[in-house]
């Protein structure tokens, strides 16, 4: 073979390998799409429940007699807080691993499908209990409210299914590592594994709560439940759940956005360090959700407050890294002055605009989160609708709008269609509507919360109380904002149907950025899961052993179950 022929053959092979890895394999795409479709059905149904809630709270709308407010609230929380997120994450991560590390083996894909079906069966079981009014206990399912045991079992199955899906992704990543010994791991694949690791350790808490406490109690095998222990186990899981939602949004911000804007990832090492810090700091902070609970020593609440505040570090590292990516690209395009680069960003591209709006919303979301997690300031906002306003900025905008923006290019990538110009413009409208609706709704929630309005509760004038009268105009504002958001959800649903089944056939890119040429190499320690795993477990043992020992050791009689609906 001549040298020229050799080179041509080599070039053909390289192109072929490149094409293979740049396009998610069709079989993996089906797995990812199955998850994503369930997620967006959940968004539509959960959105209807959200609209009903804000209308009820405005005081000018009554639900039909066959459904009650707390049922609607449970549907909203479970579908959007658990189903939309978990299913989208597993779908996006499956596609992300397949794209960055290579196609799943048949065995890995079969495990992924098993995970999907186990989760889906669990979802149907839990949904059946909510719809038959057997489980109006909200997505936090706080004891002593007692749901039907099938509800708890259903949620447990959703989690077990997600473990299987995660396992498939981790196996593919490990396979890549074995095949590429000594090489720096693909950033997206690495991030997926961090998130799965975090998810597995976090869900152990809620798994113990559900399997050891709530299912035997709801089956009548034991009469009473230790309420404080159940809530502590829930929040061991519950705050890490927030990071499980957030890290896939960060994956899109760190890895996808640089490619979309034509720039580079600022630093592979900084991104990996930030994810490892999230890994060790996400779980041992749950007590900041329980500041008002008696029975937990204030010292441990204080210690977990400090650990919570450390999360600011990787958050600001992320902010810096993203701004740097934007600035370097904007200056390349001729942006001058301190902020001249800002104008050069691709504002008409929905793949950028929607995540960007999400990032902006996350800034006040993070700031209000620091108030929630400040030991004393929490007294100001605890159980008020301020908290609901906070997580509608973080999860319902920072996270959800990033997922929505990603779905508009990811679905066509996976099913061989195109995001057309018109669809892109509609997607931009969604982003703007979402920003307006959420600013009104979440803003009104924050103000009403500072005025003392409670979260979770249905409309009430509280016997004509003067203080409750102050909240009503803000509740009307929430209904206006919520209605705008619902219009956005209708457009999103239409767009998802369009890009899934009607958009023209073609190739849509799965953008993955390259690391900037001048950035420092990634130290091997940042990719050593054993080291970071040990640190994570050590911090969790430190933060939780004594509080849980105290709770069990000083446990009262426990509570029987209540069904107040």
């Amino acid at each position: 073979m001549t040298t020229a022929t050799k080179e041509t053959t080599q070039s053909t092979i390289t192109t072929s390998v490149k094409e293979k890895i740049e396009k998610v394999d069709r079989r993996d795409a089906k797995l990812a799409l199955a998850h994503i479709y369930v997620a967006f059905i959940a968004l539509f149904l959960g959105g209807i429940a959200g609209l009903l809630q804000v209308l009820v709270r405005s005081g000018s709308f009554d639900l039909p007699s066959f459904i009650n407010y707390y049922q609607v609230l449970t549907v909203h929380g479970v579908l959007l807080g658990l189903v939309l997120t978990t299913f989208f994450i597993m779908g996006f991560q499956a596609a992300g691993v397949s794209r960055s590390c290579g196609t799943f083996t048949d065995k890995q894909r079969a495990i992924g499908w098993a995970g999907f079906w186990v989760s889906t069966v669990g979802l149907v079981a839990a949904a059946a209990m909510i719809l038959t009014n057997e489980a109006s206990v909200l997505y936090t399912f706080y004891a002593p409210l007692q749901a039907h045991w099938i509800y708890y079992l259903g949620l447990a199955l959703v989690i077990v299914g997600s473990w299987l899906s995660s396992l498939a992704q981790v196996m593919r990543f490990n396979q890549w590592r074995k095949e590429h010994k000594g090489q720096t791991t693909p950033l997206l694949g690495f991030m997926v594994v961090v998130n799965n690791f975090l998810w597995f350790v976090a869900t152990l808490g809620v798994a113990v709560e559900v399997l050891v406490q709530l299912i035997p109690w709801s089956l009548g095998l034991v009469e009473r439940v230790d309420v404080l222990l159940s809530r502590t186990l829930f929040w061991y899981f519950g705050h890490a759940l927030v990071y499980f939602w957030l890290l896939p949004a960060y994956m899109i911000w760190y890895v996808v956005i640089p490619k979309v804007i034509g720039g580079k990832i600022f630093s592979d090492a900084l991104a990996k360090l930030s994810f490892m810090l999230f890994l060790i700091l996400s779980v041992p902070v749950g007590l900041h959700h329980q500041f008002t609970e008696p029975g937990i020593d204030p010292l441990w609440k204080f210690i977990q407050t400090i650990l919570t505040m450390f999360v600011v570090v990787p958050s600001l590292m992320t902010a810096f890294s993203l701004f740097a990516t934007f600035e370097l690209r904007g200056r390349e395009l001729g942006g001058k002055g301190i902020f001249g680069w800002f104008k050069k960003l691709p504002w008409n591209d929905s793949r950028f605009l929607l995540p960007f709006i999400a990032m902006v919303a996350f800034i006040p979301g993070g700031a209000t989160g620091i108030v929630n997690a400040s030991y004393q300031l929490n007294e100001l906002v605890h159980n008020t609708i301020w908290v609901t306003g906070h997580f509608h900025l973080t999860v319902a905008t920072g996270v959800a709008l990033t997922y929505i923006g990603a779905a508009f290019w990811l679905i066509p990538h996976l099913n061989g269609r195109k995001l057309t110009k018109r669809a892109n413009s509609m997607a931009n409208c969604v982003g703007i509507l979402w920003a307006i609706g959420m600013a009104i709704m979440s803003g009104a929630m924050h103000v009403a919360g500072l005025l003392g309005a409670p979260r979770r509760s249905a409309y009430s004038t509280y016997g004509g109380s003067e203080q409750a009268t102050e909240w009503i105009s803000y509740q009307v504002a929430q209904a206006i904002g919520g209605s705008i958001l619902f219009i956005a959800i209708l457009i999103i649903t239409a767009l998802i149907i369009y890009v899934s089944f009607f958009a023209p056939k073609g190739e849509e890119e799965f953008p993955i950025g390259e690391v900037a040429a001048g950035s420092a190499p990634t130290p091997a320690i940042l990719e050593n899961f054993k080291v970071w795993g040990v640190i994570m477990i050590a911090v969790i043992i430190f933060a939780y052993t004594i509080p849980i020992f105290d709770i069990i050791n000083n446990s009262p009689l426990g509570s029987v179950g209540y069904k107040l609906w």
Partner: protein
Amino acid sequence: MTKQKKSSDDNLKGTLFATFGVGLVIIIVWVYCFDLFIGRF
């Protein structure tokens, strides 16, 4: 001595100020709530 012209591509001043801006939002929200807290409790 010749002056070396710094490439504007490597300028991250905007990033620094924007990150400070994020910190400033955090501080303003926290101080506002702290003031309310002190006034009420």
